[in-house]
């Protein structure tokens, strides 16, 4: 049975209202009261498939809707087929300054071009959430760093990564050197590229990866 329930949600929860007086900071959240319709089954299935609670899913939907109010319908009972293009999603404040923003969005999109449906949008933040296990995060981090989508981190990918990390402050020779050394260090099977196994092995020994590969929503 499918229960239809309309839930009135105020995106601005009472905590924030309460805190607003205390801290004087640029407010990024606009008070907007929305009514979003989700069927109960959709909630359950999303809760089963991601690391989010009901409230967070609603909040995520609020954010998704905010990106393109005229495109995204309020009523999600029938799971309408609607996708937002990369350019819109990349403009979220959470991603805006991230050098890998395009890759993040692309790796979570079905078509690889960066068009995200709501499901994929939720998926993205679920993987980047605090609760996601290391293995899952490692897989998507690998996808993100794999710029040319050839299932390896080769020299080309590494160069791109380094240029994005350092905002092209390093000279080409330095980049070259770092690439070589990096591959030398992490390549266990000697094919001069990093396969997923190499990457995972490296990530499993980087204690800070879990805390840095994390975006709060």
């Amino acid at each position, binding site marked *: 049975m499918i229960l239809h329930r309309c839930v009135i949600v105020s995106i601005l929860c009472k905590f924030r209202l309460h805190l607003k007086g205390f801290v004087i900071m640029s407010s990024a959240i606009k008070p907007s009261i929305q009514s979003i319709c989700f069927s109960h089954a959709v909630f*359950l*299935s999303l809760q089963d*498939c991601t690391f989010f609670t009901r409230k967070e899913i609603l909040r995520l939907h609020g954010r998704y809707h905010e990106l393109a109010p005229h495109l995204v319908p309020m009523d999600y009972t029938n799971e309408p087929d609607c996708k937002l293009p990369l350019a819109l999603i990349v403009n979220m*404040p959470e991603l805006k300054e991230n050098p890998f923003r395009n890759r993040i969005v692309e790796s979570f999109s079905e078509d*690889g071009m960066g068009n995200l449906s709501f499901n994929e949008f939720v998926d993205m933040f*679920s993987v980047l959430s605090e609760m996601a296990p290391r293995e899952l995060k490692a897989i998507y981090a690998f996808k993100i760093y794999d710029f*040319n989508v050839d299932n390896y981190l080769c020299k080309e990918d590494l160069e791109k990564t380094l240029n994005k*990390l350092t905002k092209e402050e390093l000279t080409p020779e330095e980049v070259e050197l770092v690439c070589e050394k990096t591959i030398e260090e992490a390549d266990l099977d000697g094919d001069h590229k990093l396969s997923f196994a190499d990457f995972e092995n490296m990530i499993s*020994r980087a204690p*800070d990866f879990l805390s840095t590969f994390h975006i709060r929503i």
Partner: protein
Amino acid sequence: MARNVNFDLSHPLMEAGLESPADEEGVHDSFQQLIAEHADNGAASSALELQQLQSDLVEESQDNIPLCGPEHEHRRQGASDLECDGGEREMDQIQGEGWSSDTLKILSSMPSRTIGRNRGAIISQYCNKTLKLRRRRQTRPSIRDFSPSSRPSIRSYGMEGDTIDAEVSKRERLVNNLQNLPVSDRVRMLRGMPLSVAEKKEIRNLVMQKEKRILSNKRLSCYSQLKYYIIIAARKSWYSWLSFLHSLQPWQTLLKRVSGRFGTGVLSYFLFLKTLVFFNVFLFLVTGAFLVLPQAVHPPDEATETRSFSGLELLTGAGSFSHTVMYYGYYTNYTLPRSSRGEGRGQNASALSSDSQQFSYNMPLAYFFTIGMAFFITCIILVYSMSKTFGRSFRINKSNSILTMKTFSSWDFKVIKKKSVQIMSENICTQLKVSMQTNMILVHIVDADWQECADLKHSLWSVSLPHTTLLLPPHQELLAELTQKNTKSTFCKRFCRQMVHGVAWTICIASTTGCMAGVYYFSEFIHKDLQQNYRKFEVYPLMKEARLLSLPTVVSLINLLLPALFNVVAWMEIYESPSVFAYVAIGRNLMLKTSMLGVLCFHWLGRVAPEYKSIGLTCWESFVGEELYRFLLMDFIFTLLDTLFGELLWRLFSEKVLKKKRKPVFDIARNVLDLIYGQTLAWLGVLFSPLLPAVQILKLFLVFYIKMSSVMMNCQAPRKPYRASQMTTIFITLLCIPSLLGASVCVTYTMWSITPSTSCGPFRGLSTMFKAGKHWMKILEKDNPKLSVLSKAHTYFVENPFFLFVGAGIFLIVIYFHSQVVDGQRKIISLLQDQIQNEGEDKKFLINQLQSVHKQKQDAGKRLKSQDSTC
């Protein structure tokens, strides 16, 4: 790599262009489909390898003469020598020739390369995982429950030409496996699957449908139907409970802002603060529910003089506060009647009527056990979280792939502020440069080119020195290791450095000892002063209490000033490794704080407690509680002052006077140590003042907002990366080992061997607090002689120190075994790592063999061809 990929070239399948999936069950077997997908996506996704492969195939077809027959067909493929994949540099045998297309095909479809990358591979991987889990759990719904078509049959393991079929059957099997898992495992599996949500939903729906079908087909017994519904209801309520818990989490937005601006390092301070709040909330709930509430509902009869509230109480905690539920002295030593319908309240424990005993609340026992259990549970939670963070942050093997880690895990995805992003990328740039130079130095060390090495190191220091503050990135550790390796430094230099260290440590220890002695004599002086003056009539009794504020002020002042002195001292010494530097700084601060608390504990328990009557106290426990309240408050006030002067005024000063653009950097380590100190005070005080956790909660809330706004206004993003997980582990450990352990030792000592006040508190009239249990036993025995066994058991077990030793011994043995297990795992890990390397070697060897066989065949073909042409 250990999978049995078939390399046999004479196998007919190889000629068919690898048409077959490897056909073993339980292993990745969708090669064929993978290849197909690769071929589909090849152009679009710019799969380098395959592009090269294709272009090479074109080239190769140019110089190839079409041959007929399967044998020739095979040769034609084998002849495709390609130039690709940097790996060929190591391939001595086939240098310059590259690999053939077949080799490349095999390589690109190796299971280890496709896991996590490809839908088919993921599904098959998870199929195996669920199968394993299912076997482990041994859940029952067996094959009978499925319709015959969905049963995994032998046929489906065989070779399947159609790839879509293969995937469908894979998925079916996955669905079956998932359906047989318990709900919690199923959800965990689903969440962990690296598939898109849409696909996960589909799988989930399939599982649910199947379950429903089974439920409707099979006539369920009433019991299992009930169980099914109970499970569903439980899950729903669990989700709503989670939602509720999540909404309880305070400060979500603020934490997001801090993390967006400062990254993981500063965030970890606030997260630590949040954990402390949770510890205190727990403590408060326990003491509130079991001590404060019952006592507040049944206030004691003794008429207490009520003093008017004057405001100074907020500072001193004494005055009109001293006879409230806040302090130990207020609590009664008799059993509280629960059913208080006009019954006499002041019943003495010994005079209890037997029927009221059934609904009674024995205050001394409640006090004893509440405090004991609260400490015990806190200890367990702390040890658990400590071990968890240990496991997470100190990975068993030390990594040597520093550059890789820096490249792939140093970007903090949380940071969203433009300026901080800029700083972070500059930071990473510097680190990479330093690591490169370090690398070069290493090379030079190998070459024993010392002069150049020294030059490089000099430049290295000049790069890294501006960022040398308390916590430093790993690259400088590398550098440190390097300097250790480079033991060429002269004896004189080393001696000088040792001297500096010696002097620094002497200064630190001397100043700490001096402060300790100062506090010791000052507290003695105050004690004597109280002894002399308590008889004198004071016009303002509050002034007497206000005078008591001097001791906490002095201690807090020392706590504020001495760390600054330590910083100055540390500034003049050079440490080889920055982490040693950080640990030394933490160690010195810790030494100071523990010695302070030690002196204070001695003052309270050794001086005040035995001779409390000589200073005119009726209840020394309440007095100690008040003292702890004052200390807590002073600590808070000094934190405020520190924030104001150290951060706000310093920023204004440097901005307006020095005209510098740099803002101060938030000193995470020192602030966290301050928090730990405050928490120790709170834990010490729970026994004497059950409401102290509430005060601490309030204090922490205020500190949170003050620090938050101060950080936002005054500080800039840290210039050096902060090893958040490692430092968090250290801080949790510090919270557990000196802090909680010290507090519980003090509390246990108080309970065990100090005589409580004779005229107040729940333990009056007993020789120690610990005797409360025995006392109760005696009463029980008197009331009900049958229970004398219990009393004997109590005497035998609880009061016998032998069992304590046995308990401690078992605990130690468990710890020892665990450490042994970890040790074993470490060995296994290093073995496995060797094995990975060996597998890599094996793979290279096999590929070489494959390649050479190809070459032989190709040569044979050429010879055949030339023979043909000559004929």
